């Protein structure tokens, strides 16, 4: 069967079967590869997308559960006010190393700043806990979220 998804403001159709993780529809079918595969068990956060604005692990989100909801990926962040601020902060601080987890980090950071305009270091740690970075760029991520908050406040 064909389903329609709302992704980055557009309507997309997919023939993926029930039980297919959203991650693989985005990556393999739509060929949008900014959303990464890291663990497949919602334990690293590399696959984080927004579902109705909420950071969600797309590797454990199934296609039958996301009809009619707004799905947003890293590719749409440049046009998002908070997303653009986070990207600017990430650029200023050169947060990335290998970069493979950073799409997911940014999607989580945007989710945090959407609900908390000025998070403390502890609040950032608590919210971003599930986004692993094997390069351990954590202190720059923490600083990047706070810098993005400043950019948004200005």
């Amino acid at each position, binding site marked *: 069967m064909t389903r329609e998804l709302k992704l980055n403001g557009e309507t997309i159709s997919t023939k993926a079967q029930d039980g*297919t993780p959203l991650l693989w529809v985005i990556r393999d079918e739509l060929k949008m590869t900014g959303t990464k595969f890291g663990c*497949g068990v919602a334990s690293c956060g590399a696959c984080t997308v927004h579902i109705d604005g909420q950071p969600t692990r797309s590797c454990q989100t199934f296609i039958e559960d996301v009809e009619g909801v707004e799905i947003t990926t890293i590719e749409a962040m440049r046009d998002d006010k908070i997303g653009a601020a986070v990207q600017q902060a990430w*650029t200023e601080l050169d947060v*990335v*190393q290998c970069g*493979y987890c950073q799409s997911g980090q*940014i999607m989580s950071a945007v989710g945090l700043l959407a609900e908390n305009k000025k998070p403390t270091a502890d609040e950032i740690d608590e919210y971003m*806990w599930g986004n692993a*970075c094997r390069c*351990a760029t954590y202190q720059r991520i923490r600083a990047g979220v706070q810098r993005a908050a400043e950019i948004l406040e200005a």
Partner: protein
Amino acid sequence: MTLTTSRRRFLQGVAASTVLLVGMRANGVLAAASETTDINPFVRIDATGRVTAIVKHFEMGQGPTTGLTTLIAEELGVTMDQIDFDFAPSNPQVYNNLLFGTFQGTGGSTAMANSFAQYRNAGAAAREMLIAAAASDWGVDATTLDIVDGMVTGGGKTAPIADFVASAVTQDVPAEPRLRKPDEWRLIGKEGRVKRKDTPAKIDGSGIFAMDLHLENQLVVMIAHAPRMGAIVKSFDDSGAKDMPGFEMAKTLPDNSGVAVFADTTWNAMQARDAITVEWDDTNAEMRSSDTIRAELMSAVETGDATYQTRGVQAETASAMESAAKVIDKTFYFPLLAHAPMEPLTCTIEPIADGGVILHDGAQFPTFGHMTLTQVLGLPMEKVQVKTVLAGGSFGRRANPTADYNLECAMAFALTDRSRPVKLVWSREDDIRGGYYRPAFAHRVRVGLDDAGQIIGWDHRIAGQSIMKGTAMEPMAVHDGVDHSSIEGVADTVYAVPGMSVGLTDHAKATSVLWWRSVGHTHTAFVMESMIDMIASETDTDPMELRLSMLPGETPEQKRMAGVLNKLAELSNWKAGAPDGQSRGLAVHHSFGSYVAEAVDVSGGGDQAVKIEKVFCAVDCGIAVNPDVIRAQMEGGIGYGIGHVMRDQITLTDGEVDQTNFPDYEPLRISDIGTIEVAIVASADAPTGVGEPGTPPSGPALANAIARAGGPRVTMLPMIDEVEFA
């Protein structure tokens, strides 16, 4: 013939699309050309003046796409915004790592160390050729001209380099171009002038990693791997996969190491692989448990003689220690560790029209991948190309003398009719359970102290599985039977240690092992720096003072090691100590040519959970080409080291790996570690490594902090068996 007529004739002969390429010929001589046919360039300048650095090292986050680009930009005289980067193709004659011989590859923290002169020379040659062209055109002396921010400038004139690209191609290539002096540098070592070149593509989803390749009509292959190392396929049943969507076929790999499962997409390949059952032949499989391996290693350091005496004479040390007033006797254990780079292993082999193939890979050792494909596919070297893309971390895993995942992909490709690209994908479970671990090691150290607390003997025994033996790296790394990587950081310690003897016993192969960020230093630094802290406690000496006293400055190495300790003392306000309620641990180590001292401040300890509040780091890595990249590598190296000593290990039960994925091989999390502050020692020495040297001191600095906080003295890793972390 004048230069002008030469240039005119040249201009008549070529199209406007002329590019200036400067690089090396196979004999190592600087050369320039307008086409890539006879040289392999390090710098390319197109007719519009756009500059591209051709980077011979892969990018796993450690920064060469920024660093080597900086060298070209500096010498050429362009801004970082006027230069792009491209990854070099596979060509071990031209793009070899100068420290590895005729071999192209990244490892041992050598990217900047081996490229510093080479890339500056290429940039400087390009500058001199552009200037010669401008001097000729303007009728001025070339020595009056320079290139600044992409403009040829001097003698009252200025023009963009684009104006001289075509005529520069006809200029003689300078044999020894003048390198800019340090006081002329505008980029090298300058704070705030250089941003990472790979940031933009890594924050908007556009950067392409090997996992992101989707070539038209590609097959995805996943391998059903043996649960035990050394097992082979007896038979398999794919009836459960036959009707699954996208399933194409399943075949046993030619070496019987696994079953290759082909499908149209990654998800379908994963599903199909799960539906296939394999019966394994364990005749030659490793059946031991890690508890057995551990007991064997412990026994090797505690009883009998070492196989190799790598420093000193054990009997002399033993004799010296007979008069000791006190002996500190400690045994250490380091478990197997997986690398677990964020991007699981993957590569793609693409057939092309000439009958050859392209290997698309985050290629750390392109030469081994290249050679492996020629062997498996029966192709000559020139029919195999390696296209390097971004790598999602490595920590050593993608640099493998067996080129294991390239080999798997080649074997799988050879099982097809070779008409379609084949993309090999590993899952995280494949990665965690897939071998090539940091080997398990045991140490036993007995240090004898006299009445005055002075060291009079240091008897050090090490046992573990050699990383290098039996691999193509053996001739380079093993001498008189000793794999130097098993003892580095102990037998060659920078400290002045009286009466030291070091024995090594190789452990029989237990599983496949591989270098892991900082190689032998992962365990040797932990042991050395823990022992020294125990000596400091025993003798009631300040740990900083004790270390400085063991570095009397008799060698340049001792001076530099003392230098980072002094820098750390200043940065951390050592004399004042940790903030109230916190405890501070110290460690310092020399590795990959660099010196790093670290102090870790923890809260808790004793009855309370331990929390890492702050880390200080001082590094001497010679000339600091990109200070912020160096800081980032120290931050990352510290996090990588600390995360693993805290709670990670790979264990085996009857030969099967117990861990499966991140939930039971838990990565360091953001909440685990506070701020890391890094100071770089100013230096005019040649650049040395930064990717690995931050890791070795981090574990022992944490162990020392925990001990000083009233917690246990941890010598058996991971710490989590004895320490509760907040």
